[in-house]
């Protein structure tokens, strides 16, 4: 692999990885607090892609209003899902709430197929984002260069929010011990809603960044990114925000370089992610940055 290809892959990989990182943060925060894999997160991400299409193609919004609009609508969708499908099951066994999450994912995919038809839809041009930019011999749309910057900024904002604000303190308390936090007067439902607000707005931003360099959105386009980002969250240590970002970068880079170095293995790039997951879970189940938690009886 010559230097130009190497840099081209590096840019693509870092960009893909940062988009993954944003979704993975959503997974990791929800898991940290509710101990639930939000199977619907990837589909919320896919819906955000469709919302963008509608905002631009049907309503003709400029790019800055589009971003705001998509974020708000996605957050409403996510919080509604939490209120309707997860909240009533909070006291029930883990399996019920997981089935509910799968049910929501199934519902979102089927609704997208029904509302927007199963045919792929073209993703619109968003302002300057898709303009191709050249650095030396490496060329990519501007969005590819912006994505990592956005991710890093968001990461630091979140770290500040979680570690130095009152809401963040409440979140940490809830993730440590649900019941004790409730007894301390923390409004559990409010904290969980805030978590979903953060997770879903990141999914919305990530959808815009992820789909911009790609031509199409279709009802299943959230499925694979969703699973991969969960793997990313596990790699970094579930419940850990910087871990999720690192995991996202690892998955994004590994995927890009696997295809770049061994083009004949393209069909296995998805499979590779899961091999990574299994290896990780066997040798270091708490992830790269995760804390060790003793099993309670």
């Amino acid at each position, binding site marked *: 692999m010559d230097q130009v290809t190497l840099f081209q892959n590096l840019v693509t990989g870092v960009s893909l990885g940062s988009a993954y990182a944003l979704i993975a943060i959503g997974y990791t925060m929800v898991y940290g607090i509710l101990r*639930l894999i939000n199977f619907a997160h990837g589909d919320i991400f896919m819906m955000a892609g469709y919302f963008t299409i509608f905002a631009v193609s049907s309503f003709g919004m400029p790019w800055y209003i589009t971003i705001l609009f998509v974020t708000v609508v996605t957050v409403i969708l996510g919080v509604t899902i939490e209120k309707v*499908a997860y909240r009533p099951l909070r006291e029930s066994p883990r399996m019920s709430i997981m089935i509910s999450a799968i049910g929501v*994912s199934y*519902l979102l995919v089927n609704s997208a197929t029904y509302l927007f038809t199963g045919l792929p839809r073209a993703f619109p041009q968003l302002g300057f984002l898709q303009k191709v930019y050249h650095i030396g011999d490496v060329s990519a749309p501007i969005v590819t260069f912006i994505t990592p910057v956005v991710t890093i900024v968001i990461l630091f904002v979140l770290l500040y929010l979680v570690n130095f604000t009152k809401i963040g303190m409440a979140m940490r308390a809830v993730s440590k011990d649900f019941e004790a936090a409730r007894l301390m007067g923390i409004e559990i439902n409010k904290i969980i809603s805030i978590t979903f607000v953060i997770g879903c707005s990141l999914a919305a931003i990530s959808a815009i960044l992820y789909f911009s360099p790609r031509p199409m959105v279709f009802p299943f386009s959230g499925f694979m990114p969703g699973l991969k980002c969960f793997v990313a969250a596990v790699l970094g240590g579930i419940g850990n925000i910087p871990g999720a970002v690192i995991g996202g970068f690892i998955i994004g880079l590994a995927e890009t370089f696997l295809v770049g170095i061994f083009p004949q293995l393209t069909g296995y790039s998805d499979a590779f992610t*899961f091999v990574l997951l299994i290896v990780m879970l066997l040798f270091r189940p708490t992830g790269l940055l995760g804390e060790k938690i003793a099993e309670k009886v």
Partner: protein
Amino acid sequence: MAFEYKRLNKTTKIILTLLLIAGCIVLTYMLDKGIIGTSYTVRIVRISVIYALIGVSMNLVNGFTGVFSLGQAGFMAIGAYTVGVLTIPLASRPNVYYLVPISEKIQDLVMPFGVALIIGGIFAAIFAALIGTPVLRLKSDYLAIATLGFSEIVRAIIANNQMWPITNGSLGLKSIPTFPSLFIPVIISTVGIAFMVLLIKSSYGRAFKAIREDEVAAEAMGINLFKHKGLSFIISAFFAGVGGGLLAAHLTAIDSNQFKIMVTYELLLIIVLGGLGSVTGTVLSSFMICSGKELLRWFDLPHSIGTWKIPIFRPGLRMVIFSLLLMTVVLFWRRGLMGRKEFSWDGIYNFLRRWPWRVRRLIRGDYSKKQEEVTPNA
């Protein structure tokens, strides 16, 4: 007056069971010979019994052992492709593998359907044994993701370039011989389900249920967690493979896209609706879902009142209704049709007796919920 739970005597139950079996045989025969129903009805019955077998196999792991596995679609794909590759008649092979010729090692290999079906099941079981070693050590949600991942890996491998000479890649397989009679899928499913019922009733089954209730307590009682979970997982995969093989023969044409994760979700809908931990519930809901899916096709067609075309009727509405149904069951009716109970003549008898009793109570205006029924310990 409290409701009194009465039991039927043994002879009545045996007679009723024999009558039911005879009824099923007669019904299958009549459907098969075209005396009642159309070929469309026969297709629905065929798909229902196949899904019943796969559903019960999934329930064995998820409902009885408490291991949340989502890999069923992958095991089905293994079974379906094995049956497909081994049973396509020699004459049609050049037509099926028109792009990339079939590998020389298997080009003359044709097996009878039954043998191919068992081999398909065994392949699925071997794959389950291989992935079970790492996967079953994981905790509930990690296990779900890992099995989901493996089922996608199976699909990726089937459609991959290197596998073209065997699986025909993304073109899929066609000209798979179908069943000569409706009895074949019905009998195979019945035998498979009966095997799993016997397993659940054996000491292994009791160990499975103990693991479902409390892993730590079960281990303390001397149950080997890994061995029992593995056994349940492998047997489940075997029957999912057999079910996949039946599905291949039912559809006569398969491709890797038919074994997407949505299939697993549909099976989950079936077992949740039937009741996690109920074999008869799964069979019942499999018939309900499979026939419901066909009946609800009405919703996918355009309809109009007079000249006004109702805008909500278009392709896809059916699946939205199905997913809403799943959500309703999950949120409001968590036990499903049967909960963890099984079908029994006593249950039916008392269910029927209870209705007149409820009506009488309603007329008398006695609404006290308590003492509604006196159920002796089963």
